[in-house]
């Protein structure tokens, strides 16, 4: 690994971090596709800059890319404002027209005698290895501009992204904010032409923000996390692609980015799929446990006995597979049930909990019947679901609202209301 390669890595880190920071605002403003349109539209700018400047240096090509990117934004705006075409269509039109022109120009360059056999097609999918140490300065400047602009105008950007009309209503310089955001986006996208290429660059704008959103609800944290994800993907992608000969870098950057994003989607705490699945499982177990406690309560209420075997329980309620075992185990663990040989009974705490569930069930039945005029024979089903989610505060309110009642619509006792009277 030579010194040059270290420079390339530093360059990619700068590009990944800068693009992702700006991307957070594109993501929050739901402008993901605009980034893609800008990226594809850079190509004719790059090609034209090459024809005029006659060399492949990023210092020559970057201004061309920047101007083309801005032109694409203006074109989208112009089309939506002056015609009935909707933004998504305008974006698609601009993207394809610019990119088409870019490819034509690229082909023309390759077929003509523009001296140094160009290699301009590297800008389609990226070739970080082509980066020179002198290019790094450009990326450092771009990052400096991006990060300091965001830091300086952060409150404005935040308000504008959340509520653009309010920004205008309180007299903020909305045009200036818009201009800043657009310029930053073009700058960020244009900085990636070498490492990632125009076709895939929009991934580096949007995906880090989308992944970061899974982990945090603070905008400042979200920006930093997105920058980190962008940085890791850019550096990682470039490193992996360097292991194979003639491998473009962009696709590898996107691969790593996608793996990170999918992992976030699946494993993120509280918002990820796994966490949500676990929560659902937990709730399910809670519901089933409460239902079993209720069964004990009702069997006791009928005065049958207070010790029940598995067979007796199964006679009164259906359990799938090993459900009964799981629930019994969980309730024994929480000391809500006690066991003597093969039969089970409620403990003191267990009876209290069972009473609470039955009470809420019957209170809710009464509420539906009284306040919402639902017939007594229609309320049970609804109460079966609601009994598991009513909080103690809501229970208090129900009790107060109904005047601490003692009988439900089926004339059964609502247990324990007397003790709850203040």
């Amino acid at each position, binding site marked *: 690994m030579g010194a040059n390669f270290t420079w390339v890595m530093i360059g990619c880190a700068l590009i990944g971090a800068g693009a992702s920071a700006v991307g957070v605002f594109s993501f*929050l403003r*739901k402008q993901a596709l605009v980034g893609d349109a800008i990226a594809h539209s850079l190509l004719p700018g790059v090609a034209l800059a090459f024809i005029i400047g006659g060399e492949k240096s990023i210092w020559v090509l970057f201004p061309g890319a920047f101007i083309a990117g801005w032109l694409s934004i203006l074109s989208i705006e112009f089309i939506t404002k002056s015609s009935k075409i909707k933004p998504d269509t305008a974006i698609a039109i601009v993207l394809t027209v610019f990119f088409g022109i870019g490819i034509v120009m690229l082909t023309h360059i390759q077929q003509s005698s523009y001296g140094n056999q160009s290699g301009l097609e590297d800008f389609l999918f990226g070739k970080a290895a082509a980066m020179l140490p002198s290019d790094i300065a450009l990326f450092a400047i771009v990052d400096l501009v991006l990060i300091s602009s965001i830091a*300086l*105008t*952060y*409150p*404005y950007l*935040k*308000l504008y*992204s*959340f*509520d653009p*009309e*309010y*920004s*205008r*209503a*309180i*007299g*903020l*310089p909305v045009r200036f904010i818009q201009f800043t955001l657009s310029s930053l986006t073009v700058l960020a996208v244009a900085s990636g032409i070498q490492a990632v290429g125009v076709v895939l660059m929009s991934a580096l704008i949007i995906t880090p923000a989308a992944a970061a*959103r899974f982990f*945090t*609800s*603070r*905008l400042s944290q*979200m920006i930093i996390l997105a920058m980190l994800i962008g940085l890791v993907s850019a550096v990682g992608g470039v490193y992996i692609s360097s292991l194979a000969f003639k491998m473009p870098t962009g696709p590898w950057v996107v691969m790593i980015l996608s793996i990170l994003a999918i992992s976030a989607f699946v494993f993120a705490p509280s918002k990820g799929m796994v966490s949500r699945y676990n929560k659902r499982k937990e709730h399910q177990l809670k519901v089933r446990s409460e239902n079993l406690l209720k069964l004990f309560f009702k069997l006791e209420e009928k005065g049958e006995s207070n010790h029940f075997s598995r067979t007796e329980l199964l006679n009164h309620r259906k359990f799938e597979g090993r459900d009964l075992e799981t629930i019994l185990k969980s309730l024994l663990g929480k000391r809500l049930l006690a066991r003597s040989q093969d039969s089970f009974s409620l403990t003191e705490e267990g009876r209290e909990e069972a009473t609470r569930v039955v009470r809420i069930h019957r209170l809710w039945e009464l509420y539906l019947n009284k306040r919402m005029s639902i017939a007594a024979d229609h309320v049970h089903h609804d109460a079966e679901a609601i009994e598991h989610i009513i909080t103690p505060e809501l229970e208090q309110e129900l009790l107060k609202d109904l005047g601490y009642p003692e009988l439900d619509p089926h004339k059964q006792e609502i247990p324990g209301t007397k003790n709850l009277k203040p």
Partner: protein
Amino acid sequence: MIAFEAHNLTVSYDKQPVLWDIDFEIPEGKLVGIIGPNGSGKTTLIKAAMGILEADSGFVKIFEKSPDEIRERMGYVPQRQSVDWDFPATVMDITMMGRYRKGKLFGRLSKADREIAVDSLKRVGMYDFRDRQISELSGGQQQRVFIARSLAQQADIYLMDEPFVGIDAASEESILNILREMRSAGKTVIMVHHDLHTALEFFDWVVLLNTRLVAAGSKDEVLTEENLRTAYGGKLNVLSRIADLVKRQEYPLREEDSKE
């Protein structure tokens, strides 16, 4: 003093005129309801007054000045559904936005600004929620945060777009209290409202719209059976056909110099 004046105001939405030659005045210190059927231009009127939509002709004056000169004295509460509540921000963040000013360098806020925001949150009863994510709030709580944000503006005239839609009883009570407080402090509140029944109870001044001005004045003068029948008895057929026609024309409806 006249708090709000609309003078020959015509405004289009999506190139179609939705307000025709609106002309009325509202004195200072009133609680004003803008009332009319769906699509009668209520929101458009507020947005035109706030400078969010541009008027085709005519103008709005606030305290006898153009809104641009007097923005610091105008509070605004947009429709709750106009933003994405999944945005990563806390209740305090949103309320602080009411303190942003054009002149403030890069929007940096001071300790005094923070105190004003805290005070606004307390007034709407949302101070205990200050560090909550806005995505975790109920509809009524979201509305109260929007009201707090406008209170933080410390304005003299407030324009609100349907703050009573889809909120719980507690939030409604809280917002009503704020409105009464504002009135006794001499503030003017102009509010789009869709419910006729409560309008009679809430407001002391009413602007009745149906793409044109039906009536404006004290609520007893305006909310007569005849006026209501005019406002709610369907659109003027010719007027809506002309609006359609205007939309289809390629040239502007009015010449530039007719603007004032």
